[in-house]
């Protein structure tokens, strides 16, 4: 199940890309800016600004709402349809060195034979694919997609195991182990660190992350520091979920400081932002 196909996506890898957002994720990060991709089930958006309060819907999804205040979030799609859709922008991928990014949610938590089939079809057409992952899946799933994947955009959120559990709902051990194995398999890796004010924006966390990367001989092609933004907050409201508004966006100075931490560990290609 997917929630969105985002074309002209220019911050999820090289060139002009199409990003597919799959629905469902094993993590429940409390700052998530795509909360509609957490649940594996269909959900519904309610747009308060379109609603005139006529009451006909009784507060539930109502297809015939004349003001279009309700929208379904999540739709089943076949691998063939998906392949056809992303193929439409092939001319842009070829000019720009772009391709497709599978994101989510967690793409590797989906039906893996569906994903592998899709990847095979795209590979035949010469469309390069990046996988954006939280890393929290059985490694066999990585092995299944490895031959067809150009780069893995791999999130490293928190090195502190307790904090990781607190903010994402799961332990980080599997994530770290998978990253090591992926690196041993010579995969191309872009490490992505969402920098969330109040959660992981500490020198300690950055130093530990850098040390982990260095000590395990992981050679990421890029490291991206992605500053937290609150553009997802309206989606919480639309889904009827509560939004924890306590997170803050780190300052430019802080981000520069973190960049230097990574550089001081001998790491290169550190970027701020996508």
């Amino acid at each position, binding site marked *: 199940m997917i929630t969105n*196909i*985002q*074309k*002209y*996506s*220019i*911050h999820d890898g090289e*060139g*002009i890309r*199409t990003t597919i957002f799959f629905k469902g994720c094993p993590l429940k990060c409390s700052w998530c*800016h795509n909360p509609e991709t957490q649940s594996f089930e269909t959900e519904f958006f309610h747009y308060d600004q379109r609603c005139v309060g006529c009451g006909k819907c009784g507060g539930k999804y109502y297809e*015939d*709402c*004349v*003001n*279009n205040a309700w929208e379904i979030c999540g739709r089943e799609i076949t691998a063939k349809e998906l392949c056809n859709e992303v193929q*439409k*922008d092939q*001319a*842009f991928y070829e*000019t*720009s060195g*772009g391709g497709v990014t599978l994101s989510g949610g967690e793409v590797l938590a989906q039906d893996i034979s569906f994903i592998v089939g899709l990847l095979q079809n795209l590979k035949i057409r010469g469309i390069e694919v990046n996988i954006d992952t939280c890393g929290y899946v059985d490694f066999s799933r990585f092995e299944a997609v490895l031959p067809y994947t150009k780069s893995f955009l791999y999130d490293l959120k928190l090195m502190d195991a307790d904090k990781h559990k607190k903010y994402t709902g799961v332990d980080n051990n599997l994530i770290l182990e998978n990253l090591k194995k992926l690196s041993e398999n010579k995969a191309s890796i872009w490490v992505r660190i969402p920098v969330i004010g109040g959660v992981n924006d500490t020198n300690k966390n950055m130093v530990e992350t850098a040390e982990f990367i260095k000590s395990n001989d992981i050679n990421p092609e890029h490291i991206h520091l992605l500053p937290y933004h609150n*553009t*997802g907050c309206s989606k919480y409201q639309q889904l009827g979920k509560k939004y924890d508004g306590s997170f803050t966006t780190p300052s430019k100075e802080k981000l520069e400081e973190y960049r230097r931490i990574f550089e001081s560990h001998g790491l290169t290609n550190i970027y701020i*932002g*996508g």
Partner: protein
Amino acid sequence: MEERGMNTRIQKLRKSSLEAVASIDMERAKYFTETYKKYEGSVSIPELRAMALKNYFSKKTLYIGEGELIVGEKGCKPQAAPTFPDLCCHTVDDLHVMNDRELISFKVADEDYSFQENEIIPYWENRSIRQIILKHMTPEWKKVYEAGIFTEFMEQRGPGHTVGSENIYNKGFLEYKSDIEKTLENLDYINDMEALEKEHQLKAMMIACDAIIILATRYADYAQKLAAEENDEKRKKELIAIAENCRVVPANKPKNYWQAIQMYWFCHLGVTSELNPWDAYSPGRLDQHLIRFYDNDISEGILTRDEAKELLECLWVKFNNQPAPPKVGITLKESSTYTDFANINTGGITPEGKDGVNDVSYLILECMDEMKLLQPSSNVQISKKTPQTFLKKACEISRKGWGQPAFYNTEAIVQELLNAGKTIADARKGGTSGCVETGAFGNEAYILTGYFNIPKIFELTLFDGYDNMSKQQLGPHTGKAEDFKSYGELWDAFTKQIDYFLDLKIRGNLVIEKIYATQMPVPFLSILTNDCIGRGKDYNAGGARYNTSYIQGVGIGTITDCLAAIKYNVFDQKKFNMSELLDALKANFEGYEKIYNLVSNKTPKYGNDDDYADDIMKSVFTMYRDKVTGRKNIRGGEFRINMLPTTCHVYFGDVMIASANGRLAHKPVSEGISPEKGADVNGPTAVVKSCSKMDHLSTGGTLLNQKFTPSVVAGEEGLAQMANLIRTYFNLDGHHIQFNVIDRETLIKAQQNPEEYKDLIVRVAGYSDHFRNLSKALQDEIIERTEQSFA
């Protein structure tokens, strides 16, 4: 005001150009009328026209501004606009409107009102071409014209366009005179039944050559006089050089870079003073023309790069000094721009087909960026051979947000010209002018004749030819839409309506072309346009090597979405029936919210790379193109189409009731080939893909607007992908793309507080304009254009 320009001289010139108050200048009217009164009836019409121009250039007030290096004004001073009563004559009321209104005003001196009333109006009110045209139009034509089915370009301005070619720099007017003499000597009065007409035309061209040489000689004398009075040694030298330049050009061909630019400017003044053709006159491929002078002067050590740029910036000021000629009547009230659409092409390919980007190309980009002026409109031609550096440099300027440069696809232009029968040599020297119109520069009279309101004709189709807006039967009876059993029946009725209105339009066009050919020749423009001299024929009578007439299709996005809405909801899904829809349209959807929601939000729409809608777009486009292309004009050429609206989509929407795609009554229809506002929800690549399904190469130009929020094109990555988006569109044979990079909030603020946003410039159609000068409807339209932004 922001100080712009490379040095103090340019900053001062630019400032005075922007601060000068636009005014009406009666001198042209005065001297043209003087000649007409004296000689009308006793000499041939072409000679009469040339004599009038010569009289004007012999007597008009001269102007050399402080610090100017390029000289010559159309009127008596910067921002002074001559009038053209020979074409359309202002009433005294018109003068009051233009003097009194707040925006786009022209100051009228007290004595000009009475002069117009006592001298100009009595002579011209029944002689002006506009009056003659209106006399010859049928009642059906007038009814349909007033209902907004189509517009007519030639009732207020002369036929255009033509753009300057390398001719301007290769020959002086003395040499043209000897060419003309040779043709005169060889006229065959025994076998050529048109010999006498040719004699008149050629003699008129001789007089027009004298006219421009006289103007330049007067400027030379004036500059010399100023030099003698000048105390500042540096300026004195400049004035002496200006005098020397004006003695060389335009009588002779230019010897250096400075003279080459001055030569162009004299030609510009000649063309735009003789008549007021669409869209002024343009230097066209300026970088290709100037490069040999630039290279030569640099190697001889008589020019530096900075001096070369300074002269270009002086030329930019000259363009900006010339407001578009003020219109008359309703058109005057509705017109909202000073821009006269002169357009400069940079880049592209050489006549040999090699990459055309050269040192002057980069100078022009810098000049464009530094000057930030509405005029001239500047664009870049991007070919497969264009270096990425050049494209990215152009993108860097474009993403600053004020709409210049626009981007054109060289390979598409060449192919369009080849498809229209031009030689490869002429095609490679071609480009675009006006907004996006493709032409064989210097060789072609490509005349735009008017906009064609395709969505309105579909609206009439739904009501059996009856117009709910003007409450009258306008089209033929093609059947009640409620009775149509299939989409095919609806389509057939639609094409019959198109046939009817197209015939009306073309009938009008042919009559008007004939009136211009016989009564409004342009001998000066004819000298500069191949092959008018050789043929002894006027530009307006088929003298040019190529002669094309265009009818500009408007509203392809709206009409596509209307047809899709009906096909999908009425015939395929049966969500509602036709009579419910017609009731909804008549009620402007009030009380029909369910239908409104379905057609607005739950129907496939053009601009999303969805073949359901895009196939409909293709069928409308192909039908329209095939009905127009190939029909004969009176100048020996053919009709063709292009797809651009300038600002006409606002007017065309205003004369319409609600449409089947959810567009409400009076709201603008879609512009250019862009999707209907808000219909494209899949981002710019989907828009580009949808638009590229149209066969651009069989048109004379298409216009695609994209609005980006600044964050989308920010940074190296944003810039690189903007360039890649353009490259891909052009690989897919797209003709043109332009960008507004500005966020919605800024535009809304600017609408609310115009005084605080005086300098805000936005892309409108194929040109940019001050946001505060646009009508409210047009401002709203730009605000509502779909904004491409991404999380």
